[in-house]
């Protein structure tokens, strides 16, 4: 007897639930998204007319959408840069063999459990221009009271800070795991060869961590593009004057507030292209420049 069970129909039956769910709730809507993106909605969505690629042309010519694109990429870039750098430094610290190391690790990664919406709510209070603790601290130390809510640049910065903070725990988990897998003898060898601590990190440890780095880069980009919706919605609703209107928020507004479903569907496809590119780049680059322990 082999390790496989007999039967041709049985496995299909087992896979049926998976296929019903992904068919109805993923592939069919995906097909519909493509379809919808070729139509324009009139009269608040009451009528649809076929317009071909007009929605896509609008995507590339609309200054408002282009701004949202730039804004989203700067947002993602800043979130990725800061959350990965800060969490990497914290992970190095937490990886030191000191007493209470376990406590420190737990105390650094717990914000992972927070949702973007809850993080948004807490940070909105902290940044509140009149009762927020941040402005109290800023005023009593350097004498300024910035208006984080109605100033465009400051509101954008506020959302970036909240998004970075919320992502730290997640990144630290992966950096810590990767640091703990760095073979001690390689680092030791570099030490004996006269590499100082900085050189050991820059020349030996960071290259060893590149698989994790690429993985986190992808996950952080996806987080910044998609999962920060709750954060933006709670903190600014995309405002003031579109200052925090990221691609996902713009899509939500066009689809569900302005009933521009066709245009929103084209935006969905745009997001899909972004995800696909990010994932393919990760697969290609992530496989080439990284170090594998088994090799």
């Amino acid at each position: 007897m082999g390790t496989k069970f007999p039967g041709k129909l049985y496995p299909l039956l087992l896979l049926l639930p998976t296929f019903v769910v992904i068919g109805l709730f993923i592939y069919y809507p995906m097909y519909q998204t493509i379809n919808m993106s070729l139509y324009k909605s009139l009269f608040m969505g009451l009528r649809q007319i076929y317009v071909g690629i007009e929605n896509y042309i609008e995507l590339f010519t609309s200054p408002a959408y282009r701004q949202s694109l730039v804004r989203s990429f700067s947002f993602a870039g800043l979130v990725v840069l800061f959350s990965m750098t800060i969490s990497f430094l914290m992970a190095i610290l937490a990886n030191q063999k000191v007493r209470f190391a376990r406590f420190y690790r737990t105390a650094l990664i717990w914000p992972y459990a927070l949702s973007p919406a809850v993080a948004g709510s807490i940070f909105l209070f902290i940044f509140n221009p009149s009762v927020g603790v941040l402005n109290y601290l800023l005023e009593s130390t350097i004498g300024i009271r910035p208006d984080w809510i109605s100033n465009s640049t400051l509101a954008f910065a506020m959302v970036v800070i909240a998004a970075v903070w919320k992502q730290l725990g997640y990144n630290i988990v992966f950096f810590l795991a990767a640091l703990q897998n760095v073979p001690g003898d390689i680092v030791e060898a570099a030490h004996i060869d006269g590499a100082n601590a900085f050189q050991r990190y820059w020349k030996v440890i960071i290259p060893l961590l590149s698989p994790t780095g690429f993985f986190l880069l992808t996950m952080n980009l996806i987080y910044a593009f998609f999962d920060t919706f709750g954060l933006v919605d709670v903190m600014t609703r995309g405002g003031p004057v579109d200052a925090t209107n990221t691609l996902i928020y713009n899509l939500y507004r066009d689809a569900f507030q302005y009933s521009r479903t066709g245009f929103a569907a084209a935006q969905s496809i745009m997001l899909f292209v972004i995800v696909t590119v990010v994932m393919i780049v990760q697969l290609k680059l992530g496989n080439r420049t990284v170090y594998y322990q088994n090799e």
Partner: protein
Amino acid sequence: MGYKTKKKLLTGLTHILLIICVIAVASPMIWAIIASTQSPGEIYSYPPKFSLGSSAKRNFGMAWNYFDIGIMMRNSLLIAVIVTAGKILISLLGALALVYFRFPLQPFVFFIILLTLMIPIPVIIVPLFRFVSDIGWGNSYWALTLPFFASATGTYLFRQHFMSIPGTIAEAARVDGAGPLRFLFQILVPMSLNTIGAFCVIQFVYMWNQYLWPLLVISGRRRQVVQVAMRQITTVGPDGLIDWGIAMAGSLIALIPPLIIFFLLQEQFMRGFALSQEK
């Protein structure tokens, strides 16, 4: 300076830096906890009071009852549990078919399942919303749970795990006359508890933290999940103005379940993270 003194200094510095990091990470939460106990008067006082206030009971009570966070917590719990259980069951069945059967186009079938990883819900949200409304699922738990049931991650993880189980075990089970389902539930599942546990905690937190989809499909508070309550408690208060004490109390309530799971099941979390990176 001798080697020993230098080392001691370095260790001390590491501790100091770590403590600063821990405080920096925790400070928003600490401030939220303080504010959740203060009355509006205490919150609006200047300079702000950095000590616990007098209104903890009022704030948490108002969040729970006035903003219906109690009801929404129950809804969130129900939905997170249902989706986690559904995902596990469906992925286990799929992985069983992929590993222990031979059927045409097997690699292609697996590929189609994995490909769903490229399609996050926001990409398909416009037609998905229309679809669930058209079939009459608007404002229902069907809409809130079923679209999440399939899991490429789950199918992938269980498939990997099943493939690591020696083939002789399946052979022995077949010799004993066990059917595929009995083999799955009596032999494979007990051998996969670690993977299932890790998958469970990650998925529970993922579902608990869902925001956009519930915001769209659920109207009114009775069936809403607790995440969406964040939108309301940070917009209005009982007297019109935002009541930050209540808002912080509500945020903390919404945070408790995933945090408890995190602290109690940290090992499962770490395993789950390690597994999620393998994909």
